[in-house]
């Protein structure tokens, strides 16, 4: 609970810091805020399940683990943003403020115990993201992306709210436990149909947020149009929070009707895997490929949801962490490289931009390679174990066929992830040495190190949660 309170307060402080003449204190200040929030988060470690805000928020180790991943990702993203110094049009105080507020929303989604809390969390997160997507206000694509995201997002929110209403109508409560109690002892009748309809609508709203197919159409355009730093934020923080919320929702309220929804989620998982992986193969833009890859990773995580067990919960936590680390590295390198050779004033985000990267920038090429290997799920990286845990959790439930499809799709994944490795190591290019700020370098190296560490010793977290 501490980080929610702290971050709300810090967000306001950050906005006021924007009045000061020196813009340089913003970045260190927000980083400090995040560290405090992280520390506050783990104060409650092992304190057992605690309930706050009239039982609307639950804090247990799972919540804290997800919070930790979200705050760590946010810390890394803030750090590589460099305080938005390079763009004279930018408004750093507002950006940081909005991101801090959106983190509050994310943390609410992770710990919610009451559907209204979920709704508030989703909205706080989303509204901030709509604004940040359009923050590059002189760029047409950024504006288009923001409008698209907002319109579609608002629509999805409507579905979600309608779903919550129906659930309330069927069960008479917003609380997860009471819905669980009702759903477990439910007779077949009109109420059960209302409950099913409500669940489906609520799922549609949530699946939209995590960009699962067929609700993914906004993802490539929005990811591509938004400034890269916010794309990174969206693809890590929003996705982690979304899956934490989905897992909490389904495991907290709907285990009793597992037979009804598991096939829906399984079908969506398969569709998402197909759309994400096959869509990614035909992209020429690295950034757009990462958007599709984000969709495909949502597919893998949905498999873990289909299994819905204790191992699959740990799998989601591990996978989110591995995915966030690699994604931050990938976007981090992209931001540096794309600035080198602009096309008509816009950053060059195509695969060609990476040609010959390894020659002058061996460190960046290595960071990029490790992150691609991890996303592709090659052994000895964290991504491999993430996939491994997900596959095993599905196999344990006896859902082998979905694992086979996922395995086939991982092979497709190797194709597009390796294209950029080939570009940077094996193709000729005239990239000069890119100047990387020391702090930026530290973050990239740290994320790479963690990716390899978790790849070598995935047991570190075992038994923690």
């Amino acid at each position, binding site marked *: 609970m501490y980080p929610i309170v702290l971050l709300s307060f810090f967000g306001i402080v950050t906005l006021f810091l924007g009045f000061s003449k020196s813009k340089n204190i913003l970045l260190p200040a927000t980083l400090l805020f995040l560290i405090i929030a992280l520390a506050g988060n783990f104060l409650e470690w092992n304190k057992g399940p605690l309930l706050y805000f009239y039982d609307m928020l639950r804090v247990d180790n799972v919540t804290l683990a997800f919070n930790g991943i979200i705050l760590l990702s946010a810390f890394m993203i803030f750090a590589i943003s460099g305080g938005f110094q390079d763009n004279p049009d930018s408004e750093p105080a507002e950006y940081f403020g909005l991101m801090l507020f959106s983190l509050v929303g994310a943390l609410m989604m992770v710990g919610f115990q009451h559907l209204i809390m979920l709704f508030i969390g989703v909205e706080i997160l989303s509204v901030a993201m709509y604004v940040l997507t359009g923050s590059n206000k002189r760029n047409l694509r950024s504006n288009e992306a923001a409008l698209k995201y907002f319109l579609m997002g608002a629509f999805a929110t409507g579905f979600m709210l309608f779903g919550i209403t129906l659930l309330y109508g069927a069960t008479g409560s917003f609380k997860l436990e009471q819905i669980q109690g009702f759903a477990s002892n439910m007779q077949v009748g009109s109420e059960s149909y209302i409950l099913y309809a409500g669940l489906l609508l609520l799922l549609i709203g949530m699946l939209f947020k995590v960009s699962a197919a067929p609700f993914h159409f906004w993802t490539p355009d929005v990811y591509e149009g938004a400034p890269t730093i916010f794309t990174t934020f969206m693809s890590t923080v929003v996705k982690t929070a979304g899956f934490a919320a989905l897992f909490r929702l389904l495991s907290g309220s709907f285990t009793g009707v597992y037979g009804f929804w598991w096939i829906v989620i399984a079908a969506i998982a398969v569709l998402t895997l197909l759309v994400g992986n096959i869509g990614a193969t035909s992209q020429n833009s690295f950034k757009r490929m990462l958007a599709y890859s984000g969709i495909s990773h949502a597919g893998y995580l949905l498999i873990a949801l289909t299994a819905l067990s204790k191992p699959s919960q740990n799998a989601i936590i591990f996978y989110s962490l591995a995915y966030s680390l690699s994604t931050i590295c990938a976007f981090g390198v992209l931001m540096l490289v794309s600035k080198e050779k602009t096309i008509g004033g816009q950053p060059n985000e195509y695969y060609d931009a990476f040609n010959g990267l390894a020659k002058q920038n061996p460190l960046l090429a290595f960071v990029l390679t490790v992150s691609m290997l991890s996303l592709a799920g*090659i*052994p*000895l990286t964290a991504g491999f174990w993430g996939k*491994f845990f997900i*596959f*095993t959790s599905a*196999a*344990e439930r006896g859902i*082998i066929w979905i*694992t*086979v499809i996922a*395995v*086939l799709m*991982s*092979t497709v994944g*190797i*194709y597009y992830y*390796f294209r950029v490795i*080939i570009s940077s*190591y*094996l*193709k000729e290019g005239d990239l000069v040495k890119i100047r990387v700020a020391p702090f930026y370098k530290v973050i990239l190296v740290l994320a790479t190190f963690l990716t390899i560490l978790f790849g070598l*010793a*995935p*047991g570190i977290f*075992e*038994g923690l949660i």
Partner: protein
Amino acid sequence: MLTLLLILLPIAAGIITLLSGERLAKQVALIGGLASLGLAIFVWQQFDPMAGTQFGFKYAWLAASGISFAAGIDGISLLLVLLTTFLTPLIILSAFKNTYKSTATFYSLILFMESALIGVFTATDAFLFYLFFEAALIPVYFLSAVWGGENRLKVTFKFFIYTIFGSLFMLVALVYLYYQTPGTHSSEITEFYRLQLIPGVQGFIFWAFFIAFAIKMPLFPFHTWQPDTYTESPTPATMLLSGIMLKMGVYGLIRFLLPIVPSGMENWGLMAMILSVIGIIYGSIIAIQQSDMKRLIAYSSFAHVGLMAAGVFSSSLNGLQGALIQMLAHGINVIGLFFIVDIIYSRTKTRYLDQLGGISQTSPHLSVYFMILLLGSVALPLTNGFVGEFLLLSSVFQYDAILGAIAGLTIILGSVYMLRLFQKSMFGPKSKWVEGFQDLTASERAVLLPLIIMVFWIGIYPSTFLKLTEPAVSQLLQLVNN
């Protein structure tokens, strides 16, 4: 503990090589390779064939899930570890005459590869096996993709995706087997041996393993990546691929396929055997028509591995023993042959048989070495190829006489393409490409001489190695037959 040392020593040597700078890298790498060989020979001296798996170690990796970092050496492993550690220094030495850009990286990748291969051959935990199986791919991918020929990007990419695709099937099979183990689950291979799976499931597991290993070896019809990759890769990478990496597939068949799914073998073994035999004949016929020497040897290797697989699928003592000794022999011969092709190519700048001829006039030593290796490869008695091929053919013949007869054609076809290779390059009028051809230098002889010694050693007294593996193989067959 010795096993762990065997795995770690090449990694350490690789890192030292990487740090030692461009000028010293070669020598450091060679010393590293020789040190590993020394260690392997020491292990061989300490090894007791009757005592099962030895020198093991086991660290909990995912303790609660029963997945551990465990490895050990039995007869089958030891043979392949010896092969790997024997060939790696020779591969390093064979690269000395060529200059490769970023030398240090080049040699360190070879050593990393060695470590992963030793890991594959010694792992006693199924997931550790899988990990090394995949990890071995990455160094060799970069070796081929960075230092290879013109078409390298496309070819190596195909190779990479092809092999990953196969091993992912194995991963699914392993995960399934893991959840069949009793209690809190364990991924020890010996636990997998104890499983009693229903025949229908065994069929699926059989094919999942089969695809993974058949792509690696490769067997017909999963071989299309192989000739291109062998041809485009730099010779040391080709040697690693054909001399050692191919054995990962055969080893996998022996270690996993036979003992875990015996009834799958019963139902589908014939089918797999037929595919292997088709590969033998098909590979030989294509080899006869090749004019690129490297491609010719690639196809000959494809044919040979088909016979090894057929021997394994016969699941008899002769078949397995033959496959093991043939792995050793094939590794030695194929590396020697690729090296000789590389020597010829580096002097004449051509690999095409039509453009060569008359090399024996100026280079008697080269042609003698070439002849010996070649005769080993066509399985002349008293050379290393004979022992393995004899055992393999007899096992296939016992399994099915008709298949045995067809597989036996390999002896004839093998001599046709090999002797054609020799005749067209060594004899006949001297072509303009071979003007001023020099005979072997001292370092080239240093590579070929140990190979020749091994050709005769295995050919004349194979018991040294057969005795090593026999107890482990009969133990394995007991599992299969129960």
